[in-house]
């Protein structure tokens, strides 16, 4: 180089404002990075740093560093720094950006991190169109762990875990992340750039700046894939490695813009302002003034209440609702209550049951293994639980004829065709409330006002409230009638 040319070339010794003055990564040589000579990370860091400087977003920027050679990116960037688990940077970035809408969140990931272990996280962050910027450094190898193959390793390329070269038969083909993500609807900008020569580097700088700027404008997800040299693991001289990016890698990973929706993309809507703290109990429906008075002192008739109820039947018969109305009414009457459903696939396979307890005393176990009232809405439910009923307990059974073989000594039975009764009242589905009416009459436990209040709280449709009220009344009547019959029969 002639001295004339040197004088024309202005050597820039300064660094981007966003870089720290000294790098504390190492005890010595704190003006140097930890990257190997010829590594692309230094160049990419610089381009990102300049973009942050130019856009004047240093204070707002949060850099999410990955696991890989760039794990220490936080030693260089004087921004907010979060170091993420292997592959999870897009998930971490998602939450940072959503909780801090004013921030600019940049995920920085290598190809092992992003395209292998983190493939799910990047795919879904891109698909949600998270308003983040991802710098994806593709050097076709796992460098930090010493040169194992990556999803991006070229066919035939040797690595420590593909010692005979990557073969499509055993390792599949190189993964084209930019092309893959560009099939999604949400991403705003996806471009693959390279560090293969100065022209490519200049384009890479523009692309990175654009990807950050998109986020500043609030447009959504941008990803820049950078084909980057790794002379150490590739076992090449730095210049040779740089040219390998241009002459070899680029054939498998063509450079270019794979997605550009920046013109039509709309900025993300601004967050609605949070309500004042005073309003939150109301929003949650737990504000005292919005709750029913309830918790009345227990009435005299409730004094000896100690109900252990098991309700069982087919799904759709209103088993759980029957129990809920009972529990809600108990609460309204000032009793201690608990309601425990059977849950899960049992709910969907046809049978359903719940445990309800009402007591003057604090409820110890909410599990009712020995009920003093069994409400059996069909025969299989009766046969499942009849043996468990406490001696002297009640069985309220939905069926005209109580199966003789289920009759036990010390068991009191009210067996009636409740479904038919409900049908006559207007809807067979109200059978649960007819049975509850009978139960309430038997137990004599709760004031009618509490039942009414519970029904209104749990049943939203007024037509159903009216029907359920008639059903409850009819259930009470049926029990009283059955008593008269028994008395009459002597």
């Amino acid at each position: 180089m002639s001295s004339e040319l040197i004088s024309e070339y202005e050597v820039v010794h300064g660094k981007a404002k966003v870089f720290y003055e000294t790098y504390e990564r190492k005890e010595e040589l704190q003006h140097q990075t930890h990257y190997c000579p010829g590594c692309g990370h230094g160049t990419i860091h610089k381009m990102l740093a300049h973009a942050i400087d130019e856009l004047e977003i240093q204070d707002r920027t949060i850099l999410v560093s990955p696991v890989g050679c760039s794990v220490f990116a936080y030693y260089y960037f004087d921004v907010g720094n979060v170091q993420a688990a292997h592959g999870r940077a897009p998930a971490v970035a998602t939450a940072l950006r959503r909780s801090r809408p004013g921030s600019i969140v940049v995920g920085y990931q290598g190809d092992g991190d992003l395209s292998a272990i983190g493939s799910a996280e990047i795919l879904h962050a891109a698909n949600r169109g998270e308003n983040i910027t991802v710098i994806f450094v593709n050097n076709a190898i796992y460098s930090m762990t010493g040169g194992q193959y990556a999803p991006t390793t070229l066919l035939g390329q040797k690595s420590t875990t593909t010692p005979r070269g990557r073969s499509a038969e055993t390792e599949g083909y190189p993964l084209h992340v930019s092309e893959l993500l560009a099939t999604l609807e949400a991403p705003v900008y996806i471009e693959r750039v390279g560090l293969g020569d100065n022209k490519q580097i200049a384009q890479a700088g523009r692309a990175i700046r654009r990807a950050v700027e998109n986020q500043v404008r609030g447009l959504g997800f941008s990803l820049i894939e950078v084909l980057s040299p790794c002379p150490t693991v590739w076992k090449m001289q730095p210049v040779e490695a740089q040219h390998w990016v241009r002459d070899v890698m680029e054939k498998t990973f063509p450079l270019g813009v794979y997605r550009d929706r920046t013109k039509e993309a709309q900025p993300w809507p601004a967050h609605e302002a949070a309500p004042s703290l005073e309003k939150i109990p109301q929003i949650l429906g737990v504000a005292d003034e919005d709750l029913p008075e309830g918790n009345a002192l227990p009435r005299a008739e409730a004094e000896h209440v100690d109900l252990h109820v098991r309700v069982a039947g087919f799904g759709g018969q209103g088993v759980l609702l029957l129990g809920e109305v009972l529990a809600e009414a108990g609460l309204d009457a000032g009793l201690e209550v608990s309601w425990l459903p059977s849950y899960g696939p049992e709910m969907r396979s046809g049978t359903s049951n719940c445990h309800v307890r009402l007591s003057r005393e604090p409820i110890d176990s909410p599990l009712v293994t020995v009920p003093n009232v069994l409400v059996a809405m069909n025969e299989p439910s009766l046969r499942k639980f009849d043996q468990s009923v406490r001696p002297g307990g009640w069985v309220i059974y939905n069926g005209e004829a109580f199966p003789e073989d289920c009759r036990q000594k010390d068991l009191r039975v009210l067996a009636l065709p409740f479904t038919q009764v409900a049908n006559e009242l207007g809807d067979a589905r109200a059978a649960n409330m007819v049975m509850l009416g009978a139960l309430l009459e038997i137990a004599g436990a709760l004031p009618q006002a509490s039942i009414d209040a519970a029904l209104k709280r749990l049943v939203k449709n007024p037509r159903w409230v009216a029907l359920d009220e008639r059903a409850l009344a009819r259930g009470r009547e049926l029990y009283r009638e059955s008593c008269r019959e028994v008395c009459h029969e002597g």
Partner: protein
Amino acid sequence: MRKQLMKGNEAVVKSAILAGCRAYYGYPITPASEIAEAAANYLPQVGGVFLQAESEVAAINMLYGASSAGVRCMTASSGPGISLMQEGISYMAGAELPCVIADITRGGPGLGNIASEQSDYHQAVKGGGNGCYHTIVLAPYSVQEMADLTALAFELADRYRTPVMLLADGFVGQMMEPVEFSQTAAETHLPKWAVAGTAESRGNLITSLHMGSDDLEAHVRHLEAKYKLAEQNETRAEEWHTDDAEIVLVGYGIVGRILKAVVADARAAGLKVGLLRPITLFPFPTQHFQRLVPRARVFLVVEMSTGQLVEDVRLALNGARPVEFLGRMGGNVPSHEEVLEFVRKLARRTPPALALDEERMAHV
């Protein structure tokens, strides 16, 4: 305050929001899904973030991000999902990030089933991820405690800068009981260490990486010191008729409820039986156990597992008293009747007086 009937899972979300939780990231799983559903309903209404993640792995790493940003945040899952979250829990413990994780347990191993089991004790209490760390673990046994311990979980998470788990079984999550809530929503402040995308927080770093061996050792010792502090200050347990108890029943969660019923019946039958119910599973309420040793003849641990809590009980007693075990699995619950029968047998078998092993007591 007025009470309302509510499922345990729903109470968790309402209490969390009142405690200042403004971010929820999760993945559906029975029997924890109601927590996600309630969070999806309420969080956007209070200026918070709800997102259903692509996996539990992503969900816990989203909590890592939200917590890094200084936001009170939570997730919920059950056995298999918690297993997937262990990576992120370890990272959060290492990076000293607070969060609350509700584990509404189900049957295992593997897919197991969706019925209630307490077989997540080990993966919650012993730390299921890599490294020397613990999560603080709270074990509610009622809907009211689901609410109260959720609020406490957020306090402890912030105080100790650590993930806190709410370990509840499917029953406690699914059942409805009357519950009352705080009438004031907590005001939260941006922690000094957070990375919030502001000039003040610029230069803050969240990481679990400590490359130097001395650095990492110092960090792990620091974490350990926090756990010791938590052990001094935060252990909680309920004692029920333990003053004169010769047979001490031990159980947490729904089992604690069953054991209360057993204590009542055993007492009615003239047996001196009490209940010790750990509320903090980590830190473990060792002192409570040691205090009961002079009177107690035998401890009976009842669990919905093959015996996980029982190991900590044995450690706490250090051989000072015999420890018996009754466990059911697969969604089967130790019934009141079956525990009572076991207690009767113990009462017959246990010798009337048991000399204190002074040497062992010296160690406890």
